[in-house]
């Protein structure tokens, strides 16, 4: 009984509360930082929440070209975002659920969401949306191995097989530091691409020709648009949470929660700052940027080779 209560209080409530509040807050922080940098006051921190509520009450407009796929896609994306959020420590403690090799499931669930979004885009028959869909599919093909290299290196280094455990940093010695740094670089780029953030994709651009993520959801409206926006906010927070978990030692109790949430908000602020300072990469150079992630993952894996110590043998 005590275990159930402990689970409810620490794991379930903490993670669920973080899942509800933090994605919206993180987007608000990014917007606030960008606004301040540009000399504006900026929207309220919970603006995304108001937007979602407004959109959810609106009736949607569907293109006559589309089929049921188009309307279904945003909800599939939302389900996959929630499904991936279950595996990541959202509030510093343990994740909602974890099992062996859940990072494989994590990657493939994100893949399902991506496939749904791409199919929704192709369903409109729009040239612009096809363009975004093609880019998204191509970049993810190069990026997926980087995710597995980083996760595999961390898994070999730590001997853990669950995502929420293998992310916990164990920096002891030079080789371990290289593994950690390589994995961090690879995962930062993975998060940048998956959450469609700055050097890859400009979420605030106004030119459809240069968009990747935003162009795929041009035709969504009303409740579907709300689902897509909420899903991308959740994916962004899940990504930041992965990075934050990799950056702080696991601390029990409230200090751990505060550390984790604070780190996530700091990462969001850093993201906002970087988006104010740097421009988007040219589309042709993005594959080269992704190769950086691949190389970082490979470096991490090779460094795992040099690590002394016990092998994490699965039993």
């Amino acid at each position, binding site marked *: 009984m005590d275990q159930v209560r402990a689970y409810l209080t620490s794991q379930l409530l903490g993670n669920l509360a973080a899942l509800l509040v933090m994605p919206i807050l993180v987007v608000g922080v990014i917007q606030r930082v960008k606004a301040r940098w540009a000399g504006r006051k900026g929207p309220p921190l919970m603006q995304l929440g108001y937007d979602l509520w407004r959109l959810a009450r609106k009736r949607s407009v569907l293109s*006559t070209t589309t089929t049921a796929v188009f309307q*279904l896609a945003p909800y599939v994306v939302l389900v996959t975002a929630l499904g991936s959020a279950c595996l990541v420590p959202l509030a510093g403690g343990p994740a909602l659920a974890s099992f062996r090799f859940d990072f494989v499931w994590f990657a493939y669930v994100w893949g*399902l969401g991506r496939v749904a979004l*791409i199919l929704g885009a192709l369903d409109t028959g729009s*040239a612009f949306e096809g363009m975004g869909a093609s880019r998204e599919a191509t970049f*993810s093909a190069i990026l997926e191995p980087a995710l597995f290299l980083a996760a595999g290196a961390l898994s070999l280094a730590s001997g853990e097989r669950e995502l929420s455990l293998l992310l916990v940093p164990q920096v002891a010695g030079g080789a371990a530091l290289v593994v950690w740094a390589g994995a961090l670089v690879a995962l930062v780029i993975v998060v940048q691409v998956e959450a469609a953030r700055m050097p890859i994709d400009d979420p605030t651009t106004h030119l459809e020709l240069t968009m990747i993520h935003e162009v795929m959801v041009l035709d969504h409206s009303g409740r579907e648009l709300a689902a897509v926006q909420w899903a991308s906010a959740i994916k962004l927070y899940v990504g930041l949470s992965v990075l934050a978990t990799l950056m702080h030692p696991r601390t029990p109790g409230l200090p751990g929660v505060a550390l984790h949430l604070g780190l996530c908000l700091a990462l969001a602020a850093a993201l906002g700052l970087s988006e104010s300072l740097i421009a988007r990469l040219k589309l042709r150079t993005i594959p080269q940027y992704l190769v950086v992630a691949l190389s970082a993952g490979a470096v991490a894996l090779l460094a795992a080779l040099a690590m002394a110590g016990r092998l994490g043998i699965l039993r």
Partner: protein
Amino acid sequence: MVSSVLLLASIPVLLLGCGLAIGLRSNATRAAAAIVSQAVASLLVLLAVVPVLTSGQALEVLWPWPAPIDRIAFRVDGLGAFFLAWSLPMTLLGTVYAVGYLRPYFVAGRNGGPHFALLNMTSVAFVLIYSAQNALVFLLAWEIAAVAAWLLVIWDYRSQKIRFAGFNYLVSTHVGLFVLVAAFMLLHSKTGSMDFADFGVFLGGDPPSLGTIYLLLGLAFALKSAFFPFHTWLPRAHAAAPAHVSALMSGVIHKAGLFGFLRFCLLGPTPQEWLGWSVLVFGAASAGFGVLYTAVQRDLKRLLGYSSTENVGIAAMAFGVGLLGWSWHQPILVVLGFGGGLLHVLGHALFKCALFYAAGTIQRATHAVDLERLGGLARRLPRTAVFFALAGLSMAALPPLGGFLGEFLIYAGLLSGAAPSREADVVLVGAAAGLAFVGAVGALSVVRAFGLAFLGTPRDAGLANLQHTAHDAEYDGSWAMSLPMAAHTAAIVAIGVWPDLALMIVQPALDLFSRHGGSGVAAGASAAGAASAAGAAGAAAAATVDTLAAQLGPVTWACRALALSLAVVLALTWRRRALSRRSVTWGCGYTAATARMQYTGSSFSAQLSSLFRPVLPVMTREHLPSEPFPQHASHLATHHVDAVERRIYEVLGQGEEFVQDTSDRIPEQPRFAFAAGLIAVVVVALIALGEGL
């Protein structure tokens, strides 16, 4: 004893159906004869293999035969039972599909008898290949399957292209046959017998010729299963054949190559490490090249053909992991590798057949399979769209469908960290990253195929007019064509949320491997008593069940939760659908958008193919406008050609010139870098040889 009679009784039943299909007077009765005889034979075979699947006890028959063969042994163990359990029912479904698919020919008066008879012969070949323990019978059945497949491919023999594709297949498959014959001759010369059991005794002694024999067998089976770079016949044959023949070849017949490989792995001794690594690398190459070619094809059936090369590659990667685990005495890797591989083989058979059937339905309804022309078919062929979508998502190995669990086990094996050295672990993680690349490009290929064929609007104005609507319903709604697709798709969904269904038939085969590769090896080698060996085998089998259940348990529940949420979402969206307002697609301010402006197959994969240009050559035929006022019509056509095939033809066709060109290319005054490189290669090769000798 009853089971063995049932198994062998299926052969006369199939032959009777074969005779009736040729002898009867109308196509309807010929089809009925084939379908009924295949249904009876499938039932007989299933009745025969169910005891094998439940008890794990092999089924054995000895058939006396005149000299020089002496006796023919039939033996269905877990491995044979795994393949038999789905090969015949799937061939039956393919025959049902043929009735709908070939109807335009039947209406025109074509005799379908031989075609149905050949489908029956394919089933006969399956029964023999998966049960015979005699090399001669095995070769005979192998040849029956090959020739039947050839004759099935050239159904439209009046077209020169199709005859060429068929001939190409015939030559390739016979090259494979000769290599297989050479391997069997070598084995026969060493053992003086044609019996697999004697081969097993010989191979089990780890003879010096083991490497040669494995190389020959591997080559033959790789040609059969269309591994890269022996796949060149496959895209042509799959594009030329009727849809059900492509489906059966890709999904069912070519699995015989993998079966042969697994059979000889079981006959051989504990494999050495090099075998596992070679199979892993070979599989990874096949998966990588296969998926890149899958991503750029324009022809839907060629695309699906290349995807078979990719998927056998993935299965081979899994078997490589299993073999490595076997050589390292790591039972967990044996279970994950062979278990993942067998699940993947089953999943591939299920989704690939469904996809080819859907492609055939598209071809019947639109007379086109070119992704540059198709579009918007989800409105015209709604059922086919659902089947294609589910089977396609399974091909991309996305949860919660059947294709995911096999790949999950393969990933678990690659990432398990159970190798004896850190170096090996690192290489396996690298292979997992390669598999992730294959998976992501596979997902790209699937969204490209489904999104461009079924979504949007037709890219070719000729396909856009809706005068065919009545015609469409005829195909999309025809039971003969939709029943096989529905059956395959239902199985994919069922396996995804209830993998125990698949594990039931995978388990006995897996037990064989874990018995050899796990504790059973040690028990057998230490010459322990029969009872203790059997006990160890039983313990190994029990351990297999536990390991697989432990690995698959949580992820299965995750898949179920995902499937449930998706079903809820689907139900809710469906109810709200009528409430939405309708308008046109947002054209980004441009108001004269046409269907021709949509992204096409080539443009969708253009960026990917440009990144991998060295392995994905493009053939361009162009006549571009030249003057300010062009006098002639201009055109541009691009086509991704197979690099291996082109190379073969180049070498064969221009052998002299090839040698000449190559020798011309060698500079007279070798540059320093070239010389240094050459010396380095020679030194490395010598060191490698010295290391090996």
